[in-house]
């Protein structure tokens, strides 16, 4: 089977549970728009004039759309620098295709269509990658878990998660296929889509330490790491500081884990995110320390462990579940464990599906699933 190219993409590979779940997500968004219960607060950005799909543009979507339309000067106090340019660039390239719509609706339409394509391609790469390093049963379960994960709707919303997932799994796939010099640039692009993308250099580097062709892998690892530097240089030339993105991100008013431990709020968005990261941490740590841990998957679980730890401390708590989406090992760990615990798998699927329905409707109605 030729796996090295996406050109020979059999339709049956695209017809999978993750792609199928997009129908459910759109249905939930429509239901949330029609029957949802509003917060009663004025939304931070006006709704986009696009029937039903306007529910996809919430919270940070406004920043991505603003950057796509007006560039990084679009927002005061350099706030746009908290967001990377990869996804806005895609919106910028695609929204003129929807020329019969106004700019903002065209951006939402472009983001929605692109995310569908990205999810389809990501699902194919993810299945192939998982089959390659763990096995076919885990591959199917991984997709199923991702399909009903509480934050899976972000893969369809005007957010960069679908793009980041595609680039990350494609990069890892080519890495496993022995093509680190393809994996490196793909990882570099992932680092220009999500801030934590540059951490993909960690598994590539750890893998290089135990591989024969060390030099090419280390080079790939450096290429991925350079994505963080590239955006820093861009911010230097536009704002005069290498650390603008860091400063803006740290100054952002977020609810961190410290905020929560000092003032616990047990409402739905907090609980969904707390449960998501709790389970992710539990399974990833177990996969790292279990006696028969696979040497092949170790670099990826280590990468996930580091990313989760950083997200846990510096991330917005109400975004934790979303931030798990781009970490395939979070799903591998649960899928792998559930091979020998089928009841657990059923329990996870049902719990995630319920939380996914709630989270989607909360998001559409401006509740703080961000």
């Amino acid at each position, binding site marked *: 089977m030729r796996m090295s190219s996406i050109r020979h993409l059999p339709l049956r590979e695209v017809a999978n549970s993750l792609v199928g779940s997009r129908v459910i997500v759109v249905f939930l968004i429509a239901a949330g728009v029609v029957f949802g219960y*509003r917060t*009663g*607060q*004025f939304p931070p950005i006006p709704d986009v004039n696009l029937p039903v799909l306007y529910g996809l543009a919430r919270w940070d979507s406004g920043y991505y759309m603003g950057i796509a339309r007006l560039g990084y000067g679009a927002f005061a106090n350099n706030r746009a620098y908290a967001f990377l340019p990869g996804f806005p660039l895609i919106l910028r390239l695609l929204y003129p295709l929807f020329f019969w719509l106004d700019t903002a609706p065209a951006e939402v339409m472009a983001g929605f269509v692109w995310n569908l394509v990205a999810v389809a391609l990501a699902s194919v790469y993810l299945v192939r990658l998982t089959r390659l390093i763990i096995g076919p049963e885990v591959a199917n379960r991984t997709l199923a878990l991702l399909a009903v994960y509480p934050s899976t709707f972000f893969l369809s919303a005007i957010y960069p998660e679908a793009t980041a997932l595609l680039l990350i799994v494609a990069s890892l796939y080519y890495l496993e296929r022995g093509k680190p010099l393809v994996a490196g640039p793909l990882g570099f692009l992932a680092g220009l889509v999500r801030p934590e993308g540059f951490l993909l250099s960690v598994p590539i580097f*750890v893998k290089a*330490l*135990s591989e024969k062709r060390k030099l090419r892998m280390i080079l790939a690892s450096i290429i991925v790491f350079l994505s963080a530097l590239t955006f820093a240089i861009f911010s230097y030339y536009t704002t005069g500081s290498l650390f603008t993105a860091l400063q803006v991100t*740290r100054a952002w*008013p*977020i*609810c*961190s*884990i*410290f*905020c*929560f*431990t*000092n*003032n616990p*709020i047990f409402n739905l968005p907090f609980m969904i995110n707390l449960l998501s990261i709790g389970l992710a*941490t539990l399974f990833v740590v177990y996969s*790292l*320390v279990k006696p*028969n*841990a*696979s*040497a*092949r998957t*170790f670099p990826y679980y*280590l990468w996930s*462990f*580091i990313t989760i*730890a*950083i997200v*846990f*401390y510096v991330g917005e708590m109400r975004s934790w579940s979303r931030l798990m989406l781009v970490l395939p090992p979070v799903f591998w760990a649960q899928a792998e464990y559930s091979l020998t615990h089928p009841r657990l798998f059923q329990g996870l699927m049902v719990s995630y599906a319920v939380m996914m329905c709630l989270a989607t409707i909360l998001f559409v109605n401006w509740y*703080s699933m961000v």
Partner: protein
Amino acid sequence: MLVFTAPFLSISFSRITLPGIQASNVTQNLLPLYGEDHSAVILSIGNYTKWSLNPSPSTGAALTTSINSLTLKGTFPVNSNPSAVSISGSLVANIRQYPILCVQTNVSKGVSYGIRFYSQSSDGSFIALWKDTDVLNHRQGTGQPENVQVNMIQVIEANTNKSVDSLSRATMYVERGPGTNSIDFSLQLSSFKFLSYRLEPAQSRGLYHAIYLTLNLTAPTSSLLTLQSIRVEGHLEASTNAAYVLYLIDRSGVYKGGTYTYDPSTADQVYVVSLREKLSSFSDNLPTAVPSVVIVSASGTLYQFNLKSIVLNYMSRVEQSSSLPPSKDPPSFYLAIFVFLPIAIAVLLYDHFRRTRFRRSVERQFPKDLPHG
């Protein structure tokens, strides 16, 4: 374990306020409702024959007056400087008694116009009560009839920081900026009057032009809390097809909410007025205290408002806690990120390479038995 449990070491810190929207239900703080009677007492500044054209040789303007109307016509010639022509009239208007100015005018397109008021001091000189930036100045002519209704007490206090009881003189002007073409202009004044809407209790059914929901509140104690919006839930009764507008009046100004049409089939309705659309004037009586939500009839009559709840939405800009250090991150953050996490990574890597080495040595000894991993 330590990597993920470190934040819970900081539980002993005092409570903090989450950044973001903080909702505060203030229904209990509502003062008894009151409203403006649906009919106004009118002080008409009639007889426009007393108005006169101020000297302005270059415009060739002509003023035509009668008892009921006034028309100013003319032409602004080509000029590299701004041009203006004005008319003035004496009047006596007690704005404590009649605070609402109501003017019906029609000014041609392409020019701007304004209305300026003066009071008279004890020595007979006129005191200007206007500012260039107020709502009555530099208004664009639309070429269509236009109603201008403002609360003069509010406008004058904003302009002069003084309390004035009566007006003695009014000036209206038409102006244009520098232009390379001459332009014809006209200003028609069909009504110039002051209104008084009597305030009365509105807790029972009646006929009202506006209903006031005033809150008895102290300002939020923290300067980091800013009022973002107010959410009112209740049921309005009004005449068929009545249109009404909601306003929020706070210390910081007047804010316009949505415009609604009365629908008798609707039960309780939720109204949200945000502090986004700030107005420089208000068209009716100012409330007796702030903050207040005012429901003003744009057409038709309001009968009654049955309130269910009022919620104030404040925005907290940052986490507020005296215990958290200025950097926002408590020591356990640095401990976890810079000590526990690197140690955990080092231990995991050491264990991984130890196992890999062991596996390879076993593989060399028993190459056939080792399962592929």
